């Protein structure tokens, strides 16, 4: 039983370490911010999750104690990683839309392409309840009905 648990812990630790390394390698290597977001948000979160599961197996088998702290940390990380990635991408898009910090590798120096539905992208629409705004900045009369 101990040998099986030890094998499982070792496998999870090696996998988690490799995923963490791959995520950070992507963060250092990839050319632009929008591509760099992929490494930490997916690979690193998965690697930390594997390390936490290894710890969750280790303590009941070898330490004799059990606590749900690791589960809490894993749940919190898996919930917050997409939210923080979304916030970073949103601030980056807004800064590039205003010509600040333009990066040629992102291919969105001139702003995003039109979504093709007559209204602008939702992130540029402001806080007025998500209703479509016309090009002149006036509220579309048809959408108020």
């Amino acid at each position, binding site marked *: 039983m101990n040998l099986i648990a030890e094998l499982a812990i070792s496998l999870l630790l090696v996998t988690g370490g490799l995923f963490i390394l791959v995520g950070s390698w992507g963060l250092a290597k990839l050319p632009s911010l929008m591509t760099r977001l992929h490494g930490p948000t997916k690979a690193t979160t998965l*690697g930390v999750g594997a390390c936490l599961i290894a710890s969750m197996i280790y303590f009941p088998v070898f330490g004799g104690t059990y606590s749900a702290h690791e589960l809490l940390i894993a749940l919190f990380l898996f919930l917050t990683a997409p939210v923080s990635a979304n916030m970073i991408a949103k601030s980056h898009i807004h800064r590039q839309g205003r010509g600040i910090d333009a990066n040629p590798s992102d291919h969105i120096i001139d702003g995003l392409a039109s979504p093709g539905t007559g209204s602008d992208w939702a992130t540029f629409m402001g806080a007025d309840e998500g209703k479509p705004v016309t090009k002149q900045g006036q509220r579309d009369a048809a959408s108020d009905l």
Partner: protein
Amino acid sequence: MTGSILPVALGFAFICVSLSILLNLFRLWRGPLSADRILAVDTLTINAIAMIVLFGIAYATSAYFEAALLLAMVGFVGTVAYCKFLLRGDIVE
């Protein structure tokens, strides 16, 4: 109590996480945009959580988990605050 596999795997994981922290520090130093640096700090926090969990396994103590939990929460709040500053504080919307 444990055999000889677990220390090797722990050492490998420690090496991987340390290299990752070095790569994150490289991106924090180089990062051309402010958003790059925010992303590097966010990843650095997640790697620090992984390092704390590995230390907990290596020393067979569960005293570090409160630190990891606090780091997860504070890291998330810090990332959101930095992004809000980039969105609202620097730019007149």
